[in-house]
Every structure is written in C-alpha cells, then in structure tokens.
C-alpha cells in the first residue's frame, strides 16, 4: 500500500526511519528530562507519581486502621486523626485517582488513536508540573504537622477562619486548586485530541471503546472541576480577606459550599469509575476472544451517565433539610443512574457468556472488580433511598460503600489494566505467581476489612470519629477490619514489588502477547518516542485483526507521514466525524517553558498561601509573560503549501487549516470557563434565594457610568475584532493592526470600567456576601477584559512581524471566540452587578 510521490527523497529503511524519528521525537537525557513534552514520558511520570501518592494515602489508611483497631486507643489524638483522615481522603481522590486517570489517558490516547502525540504536548508537561507542585504542598504541610483537618469535603464554617484559624485549610484550598489546574488542562487536551488527532479513517464509530470512555471522562472533568475551583477560590477569599460568602450572619450560606463541592464531587465519582470501566471493556474482548457486545449501547450509556451524574449532586445532602420534593427528584435521579451502569454490566456479561474466558491475572482482577463493584453499586442504590440514607449517612456504612465503589470500580480495574498493558509499558513478560498471591491477599484483605464496616455503620458508628467506647460493641468488627486492612496493604506492596521486578528483570516479550486488535499493540514495545513509523489508514475497529501484517508495514513507512522532513514533529489530524485526514499538525519539541510557567504559577499560589500578596501580583505578571512567550513560539511564520502526507494524499499544515486543534483548545477552555461562570451565577442566585434580605436595599445604588463604559467597550471590541479579521482576510495588514489596537483599548476600557465598581461605588466586600459577590463578579469581568487586551496586543505584535496572513489567521479566530465569550458573560455580569439596583 505504499505510495511515494514522484520526486520525493528516497524512502528510508525501517531502521533508518526509526533512527530519524527517534532523533526527532526523543528527549535529551540528563537535565534535558525537565524539558520533556512527549506524551509517553509525561504519562508515565503521571502514573508513577500517582502511585507514590497512593502509597502515601495507604500509609495514612494504616494509621487510621491502627487507631480504630480497639476502643479508646491513644495512638493518635483527635487533632492528629483529623489530619490523617482528611489527608487520606484528599490524597486518594485528588492526588491518586484523578492523576492516575490523567496519566493513563496521556499515555494511551495517542496510541489507541494511532497518533504520535496529544494535541498540546507542552500543556501535558505543564499539567504534570502543576500536579507535582500542588501535591507536594499538601504533603509538605502534612510533614510540618499543618495538614488540612476539616475532612476531604471541607465543609464550611468548620473550614472557615473562625473555626480553622491555622494555615491548614489554606493548604487544602491552594494545593488542591493547583492540582485541579492540571486536571482542567488535561480535560481540554483530551477533548481536542479525541476530536481531531486521530489516524486516517478513524471515524467516530471506529474509535476503540476505551477512547469513548476517556472522552466522556474528559468532558466530565471539563464540567466538573470548575465549580470546585470556584468554591475553593471563594472560600480562600473568605479566609484571606473576610469576604463572607459562606457566613450566614452576613448574607452568605454554608450550604453554598456544599452545592459547589458536590456539583463537582458527585461527577467525580463517575470520573473515577468510567476509566476503570473502560479498561474492563477493553480487556474483556481480548481475554474472551469475543467482540465486545453492545458497543453502541455502551456509548449511549456512557453519555447518559455523564449527563445524569451532574443532576444528582444533592444526594450527598439528603440530611441538610432540602425540601421533600427536591429530595424525591434527586432520589429518583440517583436511582436512574443505575440503568446505564446496568447496561454496561450486562454488556460485559453477554460478552463473557458468548466467549471463552482465559483466566489471566487481568481476568482475575475483572472478577474482583465485578463482585466488589456490584456490592458497592447495590449499597449505593440503598443510600439513594432517602429514608435509609438518613440512617446510613455519615456512618461507617458509607465508608464501606465508598471503598467498595472506589476499589471495585477503580483500583481493581486499574490493576487489571496494569497487568494487561505491562508488556506494552515495559516490553517484558510477567510470570503470574507473585501476582496471584497478591491478588488473593488483596481480595481477602479488602472484603474482610470493609464488609464489617457496613455493620458497624448500621450499629451506629459515625465516620470520622477518632475513638469509640468499649461499651458500644464495635470492638471485634473494628479489630477484624484493622487486621484485614494490613493484609490488604501487604497485597498492594506485593503488586508494587511484582511490577518493579518485571520492569527490571522480566524476559523480553513479543509484540502483542495477548493477541489484541487495537493499535497500541501495533507499536514496538516499549513504545518509541514517536509511537509508530507511519500512521495507518484504518477501516474498522480492529485494525490489527484485519491485517496482522500492519505493524511491519507501518514500520516500513507504508502509512501516513512515514517520511520525516524539515525536523518537523508531525501527526495527522482528521475530520472529526469521518476521520478523513484534513491537516498535518506540527507539534512542539522539548522545552522548558511548561516548567517555567508552572513555577510562576506555583509562586503565585505559594505567595498567596503565605499572604505575601505583592509577590502574588509579581507572580501573576510572570505567568502572563510566560504565557506570551509560550504562544509566541507556536505557529508558522510564513505560508506553506499543502504537503504530501503519504498514500498519495496531501493536506495543509494545521496553521493553514480552517479548524486547527488550537482553535478547539480555545473552544474547550472557554467551555470550562463558562462552567466556572455558570457556577458563579448559580451561587449568586442561590444566595439571593436562600439568604434573607438579599441583596440588602441599603447596599443598592443606581450608577450609570460604569455599566455604560463596559457596554461601550464590549461593542467596540466585538466590532473591532470582526473588522480586523475581515481586513486581515483581504490582506490589508495595516488596517487589521489598527483594529487590533482598538480591540486592545476596548479590553482595557472594560477592565477599567469593571474595576471601578468595587473601587469606587460598591460597599466594602467584607460587609456583606452581596458586596463580596459584586466585587468578585467585577473582578472576573475586569480579568477577562484584561486578557482580551493582552491577546489583542499579542495578535498585533505577530501581525507586525508578518506572522499572520490571510490564510494563517488562528490568532484572529481565537480572539474572536474570546470576544464572543466576553460579550456574553459581560452582559450577564452587568445584569448581576447593576440589575438589582435598577429593578428596586
């Protein structure tokens, strides 16, 4: 299937191609490792780091179980226990589960898609550094004895200043937000990658099922994390500057925090479960020799699950006295979520029943997953039943339930996945003996530890108690739980030993040892930095089954982009539905920019933590400078004609294409931003409804100047960017530059007009939650005006250098999107800021 355009350089041999591509895509050794942006490298870093945090979380779990082993133990005091369980939950959820998923997706997505990297490699690296630094803040605080101690969901007012005067809560808010930045970056990157960065022919319905799972997961991350980030920002503002968003005596409400937290927190559970389920859907067909039953059913179920999971956050709040009718609604929705899950379970059962299972380690973990997860799911249905939840809520019954779901739905599938992909990660074969022992210990330890907790919970043992009386009759069950907990820990330790010894000493494995049919197994193992010598044209979901000779043909360069040229890192981008190639993406090489940007971001967060606000301002400027330089290095600087992509086809470079991945990145960033803003509007309306006397009439004053200023800025900016884009399209560069300057000025006017509200007209933000909300919304608007100004200036500078042309105009498309977003949120902000005064 080789097609060489006449006149092209002589084709390379397979080895020559390997060497040339490895030079292109590799990362320098030594200090050069800091500049790595390659998805396999960064993905592995994510996975390994997340397992280190898993071990830390595990040690904390052992401290918990040691303390609860008997009544009235004084191994830990109440304060230490509070830090330990808070950190256990926080580490497991934010520093282990989510990043492990990000790592898995970073590593696997391009390989499953037959691509060479993700859409935004520098963003992957930036995300990793944010994760590492944010996580380190939390762990260092713990070592210093000032770890967060209000529980992993940080309910206010316990986490507010009066009741948590120390730095502990700030550590949580800042550390976790830092880590969440990386989750949002990952979500944007995965969304874009799945949409655009696939190999030729991979239409939506030919994507491996795992890709669908990861895509829905990414979408949920995109929508789930912004509310939490908003909540954390608001709470940190309350703690740092006494802005009373959550203080009921000054127009706030502690329930606002709970809504924002669970708006994130419930989808979070499915964000963790879906990739686990994706692994199950991936390995079952391989080990039963049977195609996955119900591919389309599963996809519909996934999407339904994604939607429903955002409608049921309040089921964590059944005991907060929300009205009976909404209880009924949330209860119904919570049980509804069972249906898409049941569809998946029966799709797996049907696959299993029509195939012939081979009992490998991965399959053992499948059975471990199925039995554990079904129990967790059933107890989940129980607690979705409101009256029962009133009894079980906040007891060890919930502790048992959540571990059955998280271990069953996430940890066991991940172990199945690890043993499945171990030959891919390492290029080595594992023997199953040690792994099977570990499996037995884990299953026995887990069930013996957590099954009894259902009972202690029903017998009235609340969660988060550091001790209990001997007369309660809970001692024996707790002792069993503790002993079993240690057996479980030994099992996990054995898995670690097993994996490390395979990686170091295992025998070389042949390619595709399980006989799988997806593209990642068509790559050499361990995978080279560039993944594949050339990209295939796929015609079904199982390319390796269709053509067992495919891997060799690809290594010979018989697919797309088999001919390295110009020192470019190239990967194919496709039409999002049909999968036909529509552009060639040139990806950036190793750079320290992500590290610098993450360091500047870290400086911002840490200076905030230590209340060095002038330093935070400097850090913000540094971030802007880094961002500018980051973008400055991207893109083409002159027009390039469409290039040969192999197989007799040509395609434009992405900078010359109509919808380059960059633009999609902007779209998804704005979506996440929009969710943040939506959560803000929700919070404003929520306080309006629940808090008495809101907004207080005494604080309202009609004031026409600033809203008119902002309106004028919005109208001018939108007009300017449209006129500028048109001028650029007609190759009138000088005119388009003038319009860009107008757009920059309009952004500055909006920023000024918005800032004037809190500076001159609004009451002091610490006087009332309404005043705080007004200040915050003004700040949001001002910030976005400022960014509009900076982006315009950036486009202007590039245009001056001649780097924008009529065809190369992604700066204009991106700026246009930004202005559209600013226009919409600006109008809503004006309504929120000034509406109450004019309506009264």
């Amino acid at each position, binding site marked *: 299937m080789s097609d060489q355009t006449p006149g092209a350089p002589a084709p390379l041999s397979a080895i020559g191609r390997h060497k040339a591509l490895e030079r292109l895509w590799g990362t320098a050794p030594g200090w050069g490792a800091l500049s790595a942006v390659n998805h396999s490298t960064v993905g592995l870093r994510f996975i390994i780091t997340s397992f280190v945090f898993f071990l830390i979380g595990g040690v904390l779990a052992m401290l918990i179980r040691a303390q609860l082993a008997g009544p009235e133990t004084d191994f830990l005091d*109440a*304060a230490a226990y*509070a830090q330990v369980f808070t950190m256990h939950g926080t580490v497991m959820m934010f520093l282990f589960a989510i990043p492990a998923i990000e790592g898995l997706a970073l590593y696997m997505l391009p390989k499953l898609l037959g691509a060479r990297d993700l859409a935004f490699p520098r963003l992957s690296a930036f995300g990793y550094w944010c994760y590492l630094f944010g996580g380190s803040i939390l762990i260092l605080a713990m070592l210093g004895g000032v770890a967060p101690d209000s529980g992993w969901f940080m*309910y206010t*007012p*316990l986490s507010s200043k009066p*009741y948590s005067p120390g730095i502990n809560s700030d550590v949580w808010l800042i550390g976790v937000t830092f880590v969440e930045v990386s989750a949002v970056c990952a979500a944007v990157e995965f969304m874009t990658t799945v949409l655009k960065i696939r190999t030729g022919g991979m239409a939506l319905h030919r994507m491996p099922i795992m890709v669908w799972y990861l895509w829905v997961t990414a979408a949920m991350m995109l929508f789930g994390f912004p509310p939490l980030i908003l909540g954390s920002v608001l709470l940190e503002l309350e703690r740092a500057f006494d802005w009373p968003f959550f203080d*009921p005596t000054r127009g706030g*409400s*502690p*329930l606002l925090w709970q809504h924002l937290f669970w708006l994130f927190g419930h989808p979070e559970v499915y964000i963790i479960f879906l990739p686990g389920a994706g692994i199950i859907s991936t390995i079952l067909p391989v080990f039963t020799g049977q195609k996955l*039953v*119900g591919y389309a*059913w599963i996809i519909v*179920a996934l999407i339904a699950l994604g939607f429903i999971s955002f409608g049921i956050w309040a089921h964590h709040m059944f*005991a*907060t*006295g929300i009205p*009976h009718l909404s209880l*009924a609604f949330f209860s*119904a929705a919570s*049980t509804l979520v*069972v*249906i898409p899950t*049941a*569809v*998946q*379970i*029966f*799709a797996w*059962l049907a696959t*299993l*029943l*029509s195939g*012939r*299972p081979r009992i490998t380690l991965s399959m053992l973990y499948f*059975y471990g997953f*199925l*039995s554990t997860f*079904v*129990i967790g799911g*059933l*107890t989940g*249905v*129980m607690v979705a*039943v*409101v*009256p*029962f*939840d*009133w*009894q079980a809520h*906040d*007891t060890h019954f919930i502790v048992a339930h959540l571990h059955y779901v998280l271990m069953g739905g996430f940890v066991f599938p991940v172990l199945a996945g690890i043993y499945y992909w171990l030959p891919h990660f390492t290029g080595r074969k594992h023997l199953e003996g040690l792994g099977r022992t570990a499996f037995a210990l884990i299953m026995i330890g887990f069930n013996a530890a957590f099954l009894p907790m259902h009972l202690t919970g*029903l*017998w*009235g043992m609340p*969660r988060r*108690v550091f*001790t209990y009386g001997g007369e309660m009759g809970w001692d024996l069950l707790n002792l069993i739980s503790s002993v079993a907990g240690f057996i479980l820990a030994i099992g996990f330790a054995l898995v670690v030993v097993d994996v490390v010894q395979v990686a170091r000493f295992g025998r070389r494995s042949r390619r595709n040892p399980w006989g799988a049919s997806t593209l990642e197994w068509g790559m050499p193992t361990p995978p080279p930095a560039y993944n594949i010598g050339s990209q295939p044209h796929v015609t079904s979901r199982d390319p390796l089954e269709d053509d067992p000779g495919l891997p060799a043909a690809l290594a010979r360069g018989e697919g797309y982009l088999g001919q390295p040229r110009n020192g470019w890192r190239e990967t194919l981008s496709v039409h999002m539905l049909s999968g036909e190639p529509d552009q060639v993406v040139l990806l950036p090489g190793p750079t320290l920019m992500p590290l610098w940007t993450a360091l500047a971001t870290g400086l911002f967060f840490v200076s905030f933590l230590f209340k060095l606000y002038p330093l935070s301002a400097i850090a913000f400027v540094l971030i802007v400078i880094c961002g500018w330089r980051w973008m400055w290095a991207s893109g083409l600087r002159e027009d390039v004609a469409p290039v040969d992509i192999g197989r007799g086809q040509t395609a434009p470079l992405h900078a010359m294409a109509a919808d380059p991945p960059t633009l999609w990145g902007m779209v998804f960033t704005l979506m996440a931003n929009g969710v943040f803003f939506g959560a803000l509007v929700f919070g404003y309306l929520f306080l309006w409804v629940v808090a008495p006397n809101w907004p207080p009439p005494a604080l309202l004053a009609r004031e026409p100047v600033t809203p008119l200023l902002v309106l004028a800025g919005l109208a001018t900016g939108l007009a300017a960017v449209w006129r500028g884009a048109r001028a650029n399209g007609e190759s009138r560069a000088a005119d388009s530059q003038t319009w860009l300057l107008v757009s920059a000025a309009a952004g500055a006017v909006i920023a000024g007009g918005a800032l004037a509200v809190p500076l001159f007209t609004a009451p002091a933000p610490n006087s009332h939650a309404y005043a705080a909300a007004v200040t915050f919304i003004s700040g949001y608007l001002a910030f976005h005006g400022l960014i509009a100004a900076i982006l315009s200036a950036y486009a202007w500078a590039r245009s001056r250098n001649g780097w924008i042309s009529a065809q190369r105009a992604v700066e204009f498309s991106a700026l246009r999107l930004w202005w559209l977003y600013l226009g919409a949120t600006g109008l809503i902000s004006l309504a929120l800021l000034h509406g109450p005064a004019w309506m009264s």
Partner: protein
Amino acid sequence: MAPAGEAAQAIATLWWVMLAGSVVIFLGVVGASLLPLVLRRWSAPSARAMLIGGGLVFPGVVLLALLVAALLVGDRLSPRGEPGVLRIEAEARQWAWTFQYPDLPGQAATEGVLHVPVGRPFEVQVTSRDVIHSFWAPRLGGKIDAIPGHTNVIRLQADAPGIYRGQCAEFCGNAHAMMDFVVQAHSPADYAAWRAAQGATE
C-alpha cells in the same frame, strides 16, 4: 440496628427488604459471570435480550418499586405539622447540645439530655450556633444536619421508655467523637413526675 421508634422501624424494614434483594442480585450477576468457566458447551442467551432485559427492564422495574416505597416511608418520617406533636428546639455548638421545650411553658432548657414522652411524636427543630453538626439518635431514626443560619426539622417517636444514645454525625472539629447526648423517653407517669420535679405546669 435495634429500632425503638416508628421511624427507625420503617427504615429497618426497608433495609431488610433491600438487603434480601441485593443478595439475590449479587448472586445472580456473579453466578452468571462464572457460568462460562463451569459449563464447557452451552448456548448463551442472545446479547440483545440480555441488554434489554438486564440493562433496562429489570433495573427499571426494581428501581421504580423501590422509589415508591422510599417516598411512602420518607413521607411518614417528615414533619407533617399535625396537632399533638411535641415541639423541641435543639441547638448544637462545639461540642454540646441544648434542648428547649417551647410547648412546655416554664420548662427550663436541658443540656445534653432530651426528655420526651413515650408514644407521642416529637419534632426536633435543629440549628447550630457555630459549625455544622448533625442530630442523630440511631435507634430512634435518621439524622438531620444542624446548620448555622438554617433550621431543619425531623420527626421522631420513641415507642418504649428508656435511654437512647444520640451522637453528632457530622464532623465538627476535635471533640466530634465526644459530642453525644441522650434521649430519655419517659412513660406517661414518669413524664409527669419529671415535669413536676421541674416545678413546671403544662
């Protein structure tokens, strides 16, 4: 669970029904997954039938039934504003409970002990002075959060005289584990004696 009140009783019944159902479902699913290991040759049911039957119809029917049952029970546990219900105001603070009796004129507030008559429903209006706590007497029924700035209501009843342990169920700081109280349920005669001892008139 040793239910000692109407509410707790209803919840306990619900629990036993759900437990039985869960055990059956668990055995069904896990049993089915083991079949291909046990049976060498057999004809699997059609995939479509499994997806529709197991994925949609079965959970749909079961969940609907469960929801209806839950709503009925939930309704029974919710405050209905009927006459004859004894009103009680509970205020939580770090780390203690104060109970007031607006329906019992002259009755002084009690600390850490809630006195109620047997066989008569009572409604606890719960709030907090500082952080969030949660009012919970496990043998009498479910829990309700005590939230500063809000008042929540739970309706309970003790069927037999005795002392029922209560406990704060929402993490509220260092002494959360110690934040307990008791509900003392008096027989009618006993209740009158307690009232008299307080020097109060009803």
